[in-house]
């Protein structure tokens, strides 16, 4: 379909350059201008025009917890109900992997059964690894768990594992149901989408405060936060995977007379299973990403170890616990990915008539190991828990290493930092901070209108105004600056890496190993060495954000290139394209929608990381949220969180609209 908007896009570049030039001039002289006109409101949003939202929200939260009632039950009963649903299975799993089963409470308590021994847990993961893929995967995950035992992280690791084992099924089931709902009812989808955007973009810190308020300090609050954080991708993946089921399969379901339920559970969901597994993997990874943040409100486990050693500035211990999280993340990630990519089933001749043990070799041998080690553990404790005398520690080594680097390479690091600050970071910061807020809002509105019509213009302009009206304009600009620079760097590094990974099998191995590690590294962990090397400040924050946000840029670019129809590439080869032409003229344009999706994700991750960078002294919205957390000021935390979300939504919608335009131009979309 041809619309007038499409022609404008061609004129676009000239327009944007002109706008940029005007903005530049305005930004450089805004201070002089405001002085000359005696209009301070140009550079600073007047305090008198601010909205009193912070206070209102704080009051509302208080009312919710203390007085709100739905007639039959109060809001408090409601939160208690949720807590119960989560707590019961959590306690059970914890008992199974670490605490042991106990009856009675307090001093009356007596253990009726021990937890699974460390050997049994390792046997379980090895069995799963082998079932999912191969002996080498079994060895990898077995090795990972053995590492946890040897390096003395077992107990905390099991606590973390227990919370993952609870949050993942709840996140997956909840995400699946919501995703199905969104697939079925477009109206529901319409309502859900902005909520998901919010959930994914509001930094976790922002809702830690209200969750703490509602559920109190402890594992339940931590699990709730983790589930809220980890579920949205599952919802999206579900909807996408269901939409991706070939039309003919859906029509087949209709033609054999499936009812709606049969259609969903017998046709669509099984057909979409490989896609859904990708979502499961995401939920696992995000849950693990949350362990440290969640430990701030009582999750315990490995996250708590990292956090407390950070507070003690015990770099070695922090890194060690951090690495334990990574090791566990790698094990769980590989397991779930192996399940997702399980080779298509192959027929097997009927194995009827064989004994139960023979048909389920793994289940029976794992059971045997569990029972034997459990019994042996009663006599010899080393069977039940890994003996403390045999643990190793690497903490001192890491501390020494960082110190060595600091002593010997200080000048080099300093030079890099100064260079980047002078030539990239500070100019961008000055430019963004100089833009008068009314002009900023105008530009955002214009961009919305250009790419998505008046609706998007209204949304974008409104959100920008929301930020200004809450007196957060300057902080938002610093956020934008940190995030923008980091995303730029992450894209410059990540997209070529992704392309390389897609093109070259060997490079792919290395790159995906690095990316997996980066992605599974909990955000705090690499903050430690970065701060050690570059000290606090914007530059450290930027490096941390880039590292954290790199993964989607690489992954989506690689995926985009890999999923191009081989026929199209062959057509290019036959037409005599060189490798370079092939890449530029066929692969990159066709992978563009994926790449834009990756850019979107990169931005979202960068924004979610900002709150953590507040710890290293940036003065952005993250800092605002962090202050709110320490003061338990829910209104302030929520407003700052919403402002980050506002930025995210503006960027997301404008990017999505321009991606749509690009697809339409490419003829990829009807």
């Amino acid at each position, binding site marked *: *379909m041809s619309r007038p908007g499409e022609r404008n896009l061609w004129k676009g570049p000239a327009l944007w350059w002109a706008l940029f030039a005007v903005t530049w001039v305005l930004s450089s002289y805004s201070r002089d201008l405001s002085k000359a006109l005696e209009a301070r409101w140009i550079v600073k949003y007047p305090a008198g025009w601010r909205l009193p939202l912070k206070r209102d929200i704080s009051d509302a939260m208080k009312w919710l917890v203390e007085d709100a009632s739905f007639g039959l039950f109060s809001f408090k009963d409601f939160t208690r109900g949720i807590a119960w649903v989560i707590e019961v299975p959590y306690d059970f799993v914890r008992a199974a992997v670490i605490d042991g089963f106990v009856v009675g409470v307090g001093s009356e308590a007596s253990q009726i059964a021990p937890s699974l021994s460390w050997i049994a847990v390792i046997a379980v993961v090895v069995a799963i690894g082998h079932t999912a893929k191969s002996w080498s995967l079994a060895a990898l995950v077995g090795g990972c768990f053995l590492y946890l035992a040897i390096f003395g992280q077992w107990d905390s690791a099991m606590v973390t594992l227990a919370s993952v084992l609870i949050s993942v099924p709840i996140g997956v089931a909840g995400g699946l149901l919501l995703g199905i709902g969104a697939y079925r009812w477009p109206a529901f989808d319409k309502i859900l989408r902005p909520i998901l955007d919010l959930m994914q973009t509001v930094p976790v810190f922002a809702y830690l405060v209200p969750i703490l308020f509602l559920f109190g300090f402890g594992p339940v609050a931590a699990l709730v936060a983790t589930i809220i954080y980890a579920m949205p991708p599952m919802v999206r993946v579900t909807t996408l995977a269901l939409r991706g089921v*070939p039309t*003919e*399969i859906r*029509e*087949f379901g*209709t*033609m*054999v*007379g*499936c*009812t709606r339920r*049969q259609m969903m559970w*017998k*046709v669509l969901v*099984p*057909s979409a*299973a490989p896609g859904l597994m990708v979502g499961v993997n995401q939920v696992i990874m995000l849950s693990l990403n949350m362990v440290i943040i969640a430990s701030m409100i009582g999750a315990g486990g490995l996250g708590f170890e990292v956090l407390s050693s950070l507070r003690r500035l015990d770099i070695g211990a922090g890194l060690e616990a951090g690495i334990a999280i990574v090791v566990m993340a790698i094990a769980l990630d590989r397991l779930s990915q192996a399940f997702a990519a399980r080779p*298509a*089933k*192959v*027929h*097997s*001749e*009927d194995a009827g008539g064989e004994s139960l043990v023979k048909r389920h070799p793994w289940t029976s041998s794992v059971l045997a190991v569990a029972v034997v080690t459990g019994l042996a553990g009663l006599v010899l404790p080393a069977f039940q828990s890994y003996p403390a005398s045999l643990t190793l520690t690497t903490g001192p080594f890491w501390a020494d290493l960082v110190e060595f680097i600091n002593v010997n390479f200080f000048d080099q690091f300093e030079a890099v930092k100064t260079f980047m600050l002078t030539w990239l970071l500070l100019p961008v910061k000055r430019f963004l901070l100089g833009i008068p807020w009314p002009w900023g809002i105008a530009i955002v509105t214009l961009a919305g209108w250009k790419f998505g019509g008046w609706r998007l213009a209204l949304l974008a302009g409104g959100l920008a105004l929301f930020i200004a009206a809450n007196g957060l304009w300057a902080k938002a600009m610093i956020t934008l600056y940190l995030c923008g620079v980091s995303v730029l760097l992450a894209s410059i590094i990540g997209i070529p890496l992704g392309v390389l990974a897609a093109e070259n099998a060997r490079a792919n191995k290395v790159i995906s190993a690095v990316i997996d590690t980066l992605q599974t590294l909990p955000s705090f962990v690499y903050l430690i060495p970065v701060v050690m090397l570059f000290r606090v400040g914007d530059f450290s924050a930027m490096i941390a954000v880039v590292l954290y946000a790199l993964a989607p840029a690489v992954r989506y670019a690689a995926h985009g290139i890999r999923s191009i129809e081989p026929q199209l590439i062959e057509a290019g080869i036959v037409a005599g394209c060189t490798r370079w032409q092939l890449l530029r003229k066929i692969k990159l344009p066709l992978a563009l929608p994926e790449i834009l999706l990756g850019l979107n994700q990169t931005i979202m991750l960068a924004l979610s990381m900002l709150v953590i960078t507040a710890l290293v002294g940036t003065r952005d919205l993250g800092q605002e949220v962090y202050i709110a957390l320490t003061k338990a000021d829910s209104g302030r935390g929520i407003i700052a969180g919403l402002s980050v979300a506002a930025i995210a939504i503006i960027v997301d919608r404008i990017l999505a609209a321009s991606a749509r335009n690009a697809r339409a131009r490419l003829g990829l979309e009807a």
Partner: protein
Amino acid sequence: MDKPVKLACRSVWKLYGPDAENFLTYKSHSDQAKNPTSEEIRDAGLIGAVRAADVEIHEGEIFVIMGLSGSGKSTLVRCLSRLIEPTAGEVLFEGRDLLSMAERELIEVRRRKMGMVFQQFALLPHLTVLQNVAFPLEVQGTAQGERETRAREVIELVGLKGRESYFPRELSGGQQQRVGIARSLAVEPDLWFLDEPFSALDPLIRREMQDEFLRLQSMLHKTIVFITHDFDEAIRLADRIAIMQDGEIIQTATPEELVLHPATEYVAEFTRHIPRAKILTARSVMLPIANSGSVAPENCAGEVRAGDRIEDIADPIEAAAAPFRVVEDGEVIGTIDRRAVVDVLVGRGAD
């Protein structure tokens, strides 16, 4: 055709685009029920996937819908099975209005009376051949033992015995489509839709599958709606063919009528390369009895039936000096001679 009509549609429209329904109703009110032209549709920003289609499909016949890709075949067949809702028109299945059926009733009709085979097979990847074929029965709630027995029967019917425990990925395209066919036959449907079932297959396999299909039909006598973009395939299989162009059915006829009296130049273009002898019958090239000379047995070399294809009777007629008598229902209705047969064989006087 004397057989009763199984499935019929009257002036079925499917327009894609915003406000398609309003466009149609408005059009028919303002223009004295005249149909909008394709220009008008395009100018309104709509896509006329199916336009004013009229079809009557009789019990037991193979009705082929033929047209180039994008001509609206799939859309039409999906309107006929109500997989998509037509923008306007009427679809009658066994005399009942399919479009006004409630969901429950429609499900029942589809479960018991309709089967469909898809171009890309549409097999469920997580089920074995046996489970795939048994799936329609499972949906109906048939007990496991019973449905597997039935599934094994149809699997054997399509020649896949021994592959019951294979997964779709382990089969070749031809085998996968056999599974698709078996699956659609498992419920013993009366009405069988096949949307380009063989188009994704290699030509050799395709031919083999066509033979297989004819063999099955000779046993089962289903009412069949068969879609293809391949005119040869249409000729080979069809009792009657509907030719579609840009969403419109431009001619519905037997293969022979199509060749003899193409409605438009477009249809003629399709028939041009088709060997006449494969299609024409003795009836259509004979000299009618009024114009023939003597038809006394001693003046003729032999006898052929009016419905015989020239291809099958060419040899003896060519070899004989005298004409053959053409007989229908025991009555002589004309004669056919060497010259007429050779004309057909070399394509003389065809156009």
